[in-house]
């Protein structure tokens, strides 16, 4: 880690210690963050809305609490939150015109928990509209740019949150991951991103894209920061019936463990044609590093991997078509003045309010659920989803973690894949299975491409075994150094 005059190189763990010890203050950290944002945002555009005054006010309160002797894991630490998580009285646009002026009437559980751990929220970050996309190019308010190279995409859909950490705005941010929307931008922006087990983090207050796949998770520059953030947001919430009532382990403990006796599986289906040689090399490097730390590397098979994308685009769009029905112009959000009668109001409001990718997925989802097609698409997809889950169950009988590429290629350029949705969908090919199976996955920076762009490696573990994931990711992280982008 580079020494830094401001916190842009500092981790949450270290910043929190320095704030608590009085070496610096939350106000100072937040002020520096806001200055950096003001300076770099015109180029990066990671945020949809920065709340300068609120953030400074919260920082002042954090400093008061510290003065009174209060200690919390993230007290006074600036963070950013993806704009599909609700914060009471703040905008929550989901990067969509349809929610452009929507203010949240309540706060998401994950946001509340992050604040309860002391974090100061700087603002809401940019994303693909309704989390549908892999490049943040689908934002109604313009794309976010990759801090490593503003000509390339930051990934998506949580591109804003990944870029905010990569750009040094804040050490931690929250994203959401439905098919790779945390891990893929983490890979592209050279940061750590964790998608927890389905049911580990409450979805209450997360604007739903695909309810059976969505999970909130943290970004950080280090595995330790991601563990800290995860400690804060994880755990059962009675407001989310799909969150699981089991104790949240202290992931800081997992950081200290080693990978001796870990069996690390390399699924052969993830090293196929179309994976860039540099990406293969990075994953091989990670495998070698883990082996040196005492892990045993074994080739495994996840035979149904090739069906993951098809299954995902049936299930995710089906759920989305239903989840997005509430944006009808009746109670909140965009209502068109055009169109005759009720049908006209619905159809104009939704056509004007939603961007092309969202409309495409609503239509796809509506189709696969429609009478006469349900069995052939949705039901079949659910069956194959079970096969994919069984692949992982079998695999985790043999190995503790699975190591794969996060993405087939390093970050791509703007416009490179927008003309062909299928090409865009394929950029999530290695991350989607995790969501279908509900298991946790983490992306850790694994090196730079010849063009100086980040390459991520992904690790997966069994249900609710975030501890093994953190242990393995931290063990790998300790073996190598990874630079910050020069902006």
């Amino acid at each position, binding site marked *: 880690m580079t020494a830094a005059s401001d916190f842009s190189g500092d981790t949450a763990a270290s910043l929190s210690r320095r704030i608590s010890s009085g070496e610096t203050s939350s106000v100072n950290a937040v002020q520096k963050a806001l200055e950096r944002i003001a300076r770099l945002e015109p180029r990066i555009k990671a945020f949809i809305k920065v709340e300068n005054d609120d953030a400074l006010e919260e920082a002042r309160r954090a400093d008061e609490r510290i003065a009174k002797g209060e200690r919390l894991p993230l007290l006074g630490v600036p963070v950013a939150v993806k704009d599909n998580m609700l914060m009471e009285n703040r905008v929550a646009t989901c990067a969509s015109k349809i929610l452009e002026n929507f203010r949240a009437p309540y706060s998401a559980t994950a946001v509340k928990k992050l604040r309860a751990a002391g974090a100061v929220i700087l603002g809401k970050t940019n994303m693909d509209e309704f989390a549908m996309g892999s490049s943040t190019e689908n934002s109604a308010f313009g794309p976010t740019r990759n801090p490593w190279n503003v000509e390339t995409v930051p990934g998506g859909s949580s591109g804003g949150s990944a870029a905010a950490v990569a750009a040094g705005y804040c050490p931690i941010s929250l994203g959401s991951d439905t098919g790779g929307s945390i891990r893929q931008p983490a890979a592209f922006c050279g940061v750590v991103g964790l998608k927890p087990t389905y049911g580990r983090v409450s979805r209450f207050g997360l604007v739903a894209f695909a309810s059976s796949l969505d999970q909130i998770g943290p970004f950080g520059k280090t595995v330790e920061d991601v563990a800290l953030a995860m400690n804060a947001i994880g755990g059962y919430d009675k407001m989310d*019936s799909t969150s699981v009532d089991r104790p949240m382990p202290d992931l800081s403990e997992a950081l200290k463990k080693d990978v001796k006796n870990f069996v690390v599986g390399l699924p052969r289906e993830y090293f196929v044609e179309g994976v860039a040689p540099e990406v293969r090399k990075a994953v091989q490097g990670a495998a070698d590093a883990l082996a040196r730390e005492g892990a045993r590397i074994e080739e495994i098979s996840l035979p149904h991997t090739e069906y993951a994308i098809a299954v995902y685009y049936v299930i995710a769009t*089906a759920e989305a078509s239903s989840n997005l*029905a509430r944006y009808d112009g009746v109670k909140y959000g965009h209502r068109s003045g055009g169109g005759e009668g009720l049908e006209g109001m619905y159809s104009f409001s939704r056509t004007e309010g939603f961007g092309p990718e969202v409309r495409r997925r609503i239509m796809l989802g509506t189709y696969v659920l429609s009478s006469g097609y*349900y069995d052939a698409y949705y039901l079949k997809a659910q069956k194959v989803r079970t096969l994919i889950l069984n692949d992982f169950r079998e695999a985790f009988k043999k190995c503790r973690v699975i190591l794969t590429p996060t993405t087939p290629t390093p970050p791509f350029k703007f416009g490179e894949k927008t003309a062909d949705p299928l090409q865009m969908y394929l950029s999530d090919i290695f991350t989607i299975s995790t969501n279908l199976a509900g298991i946790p996955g983490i992306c850790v920076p694994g090196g730079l491409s010849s063009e100086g762009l980040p390459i991520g490696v992904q690790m997966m573990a069994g249900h609710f075994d975030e501890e093994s994931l953190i242990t393995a990711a931290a063990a790998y992280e300790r073996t190598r150094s990874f630079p910050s982008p020069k902006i």
Partner: protein
Amino acid sequence: MKYEPVIGLEVHVQLNTASKIFCGCSTRFGDEPNANTCPICVGMPGVLPVLNREVVEKAVRAAVATNCEVAPYSRWARKNYFYPDLPKGYQISMYELPLAVGGRLEVVVDGKPKTLRIHRIHMEEDAGKLVHGENLGDPAHSYVDLNRAGVPLIEIVSEADMRSSAEAKAYMEKLKSILEYLEVSDCNMEEGSMRVDVNISVRPAGQEKFGTRAEVKNMNSFRNMQKAIEYEMARQSELLDEGGRVVQESRLWDANRNVTVSMRSKEEAHDYRYFPEPDLVPLLVGAEWVERAKKSLPELPDAKRQRFVSSYSIPLYDAEVLTADKPVADYFERTVQAGADPKTASNWIMTEILRVLKERGSELGRPPISPEMLAELLKMIRDGVISGKMAKDVFAEMEATGKNPADVVREKGLVQISDESAIEKSIDEILAANPEQVAGYKGGKTKLMGFFVGEVMKATKGKANPAVVNKILSKKLSS
């Protein structure tokens, strides 16, 4: 040609829980529009449903009381359609795996017992309602009231077992009666806490195969349901007789014109795109839960009816009428416990008490006349203190003032004259004053007895005990 109707009913019943099915909002009826709403039941972004356990408790009770098999594993589903009173754009319901299947109701129609089967029972959330601008200011607009959105419902779907409007009515009456006994719903059709859709087709008498059915909605009373069924029977039969074809469609009952009108055809029907609700986990109702529900059931109408016949020796018909409403049945039992003769009590309750109830349109919860008061009145008849006719007047006074029968009798000086010597004196005077009629009676015109009784009653201002009057008159006239 002669046609036979085939009728199936889909009944929606609001469960009377204090809070809604997926959030903590109150279910109270009649509050200011949108007073009982929160981000969850108005479908704000990011909200999730959390199941109210009480809803499942009540639904399971309804299922076991109607002899259904409660599924150990059932699942929520989304029913997708757009309407402004449906804030999420889908209703959380159950589809492939409902809460319960395969029940039955035993009914008696035209003196004949019949078993009417229940296909399934599932739980779901209610929608809100639209209020049109005429009543709220701007007639150009419609307004949405979401107080009802998320109120728990059970939908009870019958098999197509009914063959007449009377059978449909008997099914509804029995269902309503059971649900009221269970205290799981108010079952008020006018307030919409009980709603019925009728599926009806006709087929030539003797034919096995069902005809094409129409679905009729929007009937707010049993009476209207019967009328709608009869209208549809006639309409469909006529269509077929004229060589036409029944179209599968939804029709609305128009109670003002007493007709059904087409709402939408099958072609225009919604494709609800049901799929399992990913925000809720499957529902597991274990055998223990079902056993507990069975044990906690109150005595149900059928059992109570049998008991009334055997314990109180009242006719089956009486028992049927008395047990249809639990409050009435309770009223009857308390009256008997207070000392009244069961058959007399039954007669009075089936006529006077039910009439009062109907006129006042109120529940027996706060009865104007307590069972104890009625029992006292009936005892006064039995003991000859007042006549049955006088009792009707006393009852009218009790009904108007809420006074005790004894007080009414005393205040009005209504006490019956049973003193034989006093009555005999009056009879002697009347016989003496009417020698022609006496001669006529003795000559065989026995109908003149009524004349003599009338005269005695006139003379005693109706206070003479009719039994005593009859006895003395018969004796004197036959001597």
